[in-house]
């Protein structure tokens, strides 16, 4: 008789959301450029802020953005967290650093992995550069960049993060 089994104290209640994502004009341009090893943003015609990845309009001004701006693959740590807890399905072994990185010439950050570093030494304002996968592995995907790694450059003062000019050629090295 099954009544000898312990009482039920919990259940699995997973939720799965199935998406079919189609990139719009601006995200498609970002992804097509990314497959070429280029980081493509857009500049707002009104406030001149540069967004990457661009969504096709300025979130502050509400106007369409069409001007493409190619950005270098170096930037600054705007914020970061050290992940100690494994996430199901994520192959990266904790502890690892996830950082908000602002590329030089951009005014908004995106999230990426920060590696080849001493986790405890990561700091806001730290200079970083992209480490790309080999070109033959490039796809329409942000993980064409394997991760970012520290650059041996002076830190950027907090008030200047996200305001730097374009720093160099917009081509992967």
């Amino acid at each position: 008789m099954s009544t000898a089994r312990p009482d039920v104290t919990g259940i699995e209640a997973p939720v799965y959301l199935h998406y079919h994502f189609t990139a719009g004009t601006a995200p498609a341009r970002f992804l097509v450029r990314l497959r070429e090893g280029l980081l493509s943003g857009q500049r707002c015609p009104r406030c001149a802020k540069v967004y990457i990845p661009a969504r096709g309009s300025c979130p502050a001004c509400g106007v369409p953005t069409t001007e493409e701006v190619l950005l270098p693959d170096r930037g600054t740590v705007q914020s970061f967290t050290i992940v100690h807890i494994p996430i199901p399905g994520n192959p990266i072994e904790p502890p690892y650093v996830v950082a908000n990185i602002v590329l030089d010439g951009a005014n908004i950050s995106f999230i990426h992995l920060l590696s080849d570093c001493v986790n405890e030494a990561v700091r806001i304002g730290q200079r970083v550069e992209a480490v790309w996968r080999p070109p033959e592995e490039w796809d329409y995907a942000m993980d064409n960049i394997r991760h970012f790694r520290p650059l041996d450059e002076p830190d950027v003062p907090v008030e200047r993060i996200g305001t730097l000019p374009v720093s160099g050629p917009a081509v992967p090295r």
Partner: protein
Amino acid sequence: MAITEKLSQEFELGFTYTRSTGPVVGRFLTGLRDGRVLGIRGSDGRVLVPPPEYDPVTAEALSDWVEVGQEGTVVSWCWVSEPRASHPLQQPFAWVMVRLDGADVPMIHCLQAPSAEAVSTGARVRVTWVAEPRGHITDIRCFVPVPGGVS
């Protein structure tokens, strides 16, 4: 620059939640696992299935357990002609509000029936169980009509 490529991709976002059931829902699910349907008696004497932890009138904690029958009466229903992947049955079925014998309120579950014409308010139905119950509402695989049964 004109982008002519249409970029589309399927992807799945999953939230692998687990939930603690608490003493009342846990006991209800334990009952299902053991092939029994348990309700709880409220302060007004009504037998409530599935059992709530607290009385709907007085908000007092409830503990007066009552096993109810595995047959009941359809109080309300809705035919699903095109089941979706997450539905409990993959052929057309009915969502039904079933008041089990011995209970005073209906509970929602699914009813397997050959067609919408075979379902009616007042129809008699009974529980069918899955082969390997695990302590989940889906241990009741579905309800099925009781032949000739209309109350």
